[in-house]
């Protein structure tokens, strides 16, 4: 603000001198309009960024005191439902794919890194080599920047991000809490045809120790056959998860590294694609948009690992609209919608009907979130 005041004062003094000399004060006034507008825009963006950081700080402080955020739908959420978010996302993707002049690239990428706390030293290539912002966003990292924990008895994070929720499923229906007072079922997230190890409520006593029998005492092929032979239709009230079924929700901020890696040695058997909405998935959105994670477009990868069932759901958002799979390069998400209403039925692909699937090692790259 002091910078603008000083600038305005010096501009006024210049104009006064120019008018005393009978010179061209008006043309100098016009020339100030462009930098003035730029400064005003930057100021506005700065204020918005500061407000967002202040809001996030308040939420973190509340969480630190043990106060849970409650679900509070607001006008903004209602308004978002009316917007053509998929078209906006695709348009954003087009804009970020435009090639940037080489001399301008480092400036833009550094500005982004400052705003969203990215570490540019980790980028695999020099900044000038990322032709577009989209390329820069999905950049890979230098070798060795993400060492994988060598402990064979650990499960590693598949992404860089912030832990939102985690825990073990215990109650009927296997629900994940979005915020206080609002939950979604894991079968809605992964799909009704998921191989989730669930048992009917009445058989809980005899089946509670079953997951090992399914996962480790039988071959991968038989695991697959069992799953195929008994398609499940869930009734969240009458079924509950077997013991030892866990979940973890991780949020990726815009400045985070946006590639997904395998958390364990894993065989991916099925890919499921839900073509849903593309709501934002930030902290505010989770508090105001109901069923956010089960309404948004997402890709689910499922298969067995040494301890049983494993699934990863990558959920898109307005700015991060498309999900790229390195294990299936021809696969595309965030396509123009052919219907006004998206079907709740996912499009499914079985990678290997023989039961082996795509074999991945712990830490291998699986997918990436793209801009738009």
């Amino acid at each position: 603000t002091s910078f603008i005041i000083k600038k305005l004062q010096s501009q006024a003094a210049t104009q006064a001198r120019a008018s005393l000399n009978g010179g061209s004060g008006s043309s100098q006034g016009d020339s100030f309009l462009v930098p003035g507008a730029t400064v005003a825009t930057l100021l506005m963006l700065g204020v918005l960024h500061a407000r967002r950081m202040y809001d996030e700080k308040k939420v973190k402080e509340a969480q630190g005191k043990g106060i849970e955020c409650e679900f509070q739908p607001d006008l903004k959420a209602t308004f978002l439902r009316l917007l053509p978010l998929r078209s906006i996302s695709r348009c954003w993707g087009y804009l970020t794919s435009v090639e940037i002049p080489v001399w301008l690239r480092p400036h833009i990428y550094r500005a982004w890194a400052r705003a969203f706390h990215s570490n540019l030293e980790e980028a695999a290539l020099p900044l000038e080599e990322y032709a577009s912002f989209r390329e820069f966003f999905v950049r890979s990292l230098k070798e060795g920047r993400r060492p994988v924990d060598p402990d064979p008895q650990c499960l590693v994070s598949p992404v860089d991000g912030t832990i939102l929720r985690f825990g073990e499923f215990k109650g009927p229906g296997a629900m994940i809490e979005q915020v206080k007072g609002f939950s979604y079922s894991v079968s809605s997230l992964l799909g009704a045809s998921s191989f989730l190890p669930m048992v009917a409520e009445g058989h809980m006593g005899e089946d509670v120790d079953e997951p090992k029998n399914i996962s480790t005492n039988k071959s991968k092929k038989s695991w697959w056959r069992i799953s195929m032979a008994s398609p499940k239709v869930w009734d969240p009230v009458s079924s509950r998860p077997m013991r030892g079924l866990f979940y973890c929700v991780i949020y990726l901020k815009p400045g985070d590294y946006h590639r997904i890696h395998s958390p364990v040695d894993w065989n991916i058997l099925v890919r499921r694609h839900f073509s849903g909405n593309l709501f934002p998935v930030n902290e505010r959105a989770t508090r105001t948009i109901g069923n956010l994670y089960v309404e948004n477009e997402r890709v689910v990868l499922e298969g067995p690992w040494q301890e049983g069932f494993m699934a990863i759901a990558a959920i898109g958002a307005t700015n991060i609209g498309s999900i790229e799979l390195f294990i299936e390069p021809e696969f595309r998400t965030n396509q123009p919608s052919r219907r006004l209403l998206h079907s709740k039925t996912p499009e499914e692909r079985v990678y290997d009907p023989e039961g082996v699937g795509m074999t991945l090692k712990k830490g291998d790259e699986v997918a990436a979130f793209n801009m738009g």
Partner: protein
Amino acid sequence: STVVIVFQAPVKKNGDSLSEFKFSVKRGDRIRVGEALGRWREQ
């Protein structure tokens, strides 16, 4: 964007099991690719 992982892991059972999975993170923690989310140990 958000990622949700759902997985089975060892749990302590009455009498016969030797290991149990435990998360090694807290809510709000920042985590990076390759860092441990949780471990299971011989009891």
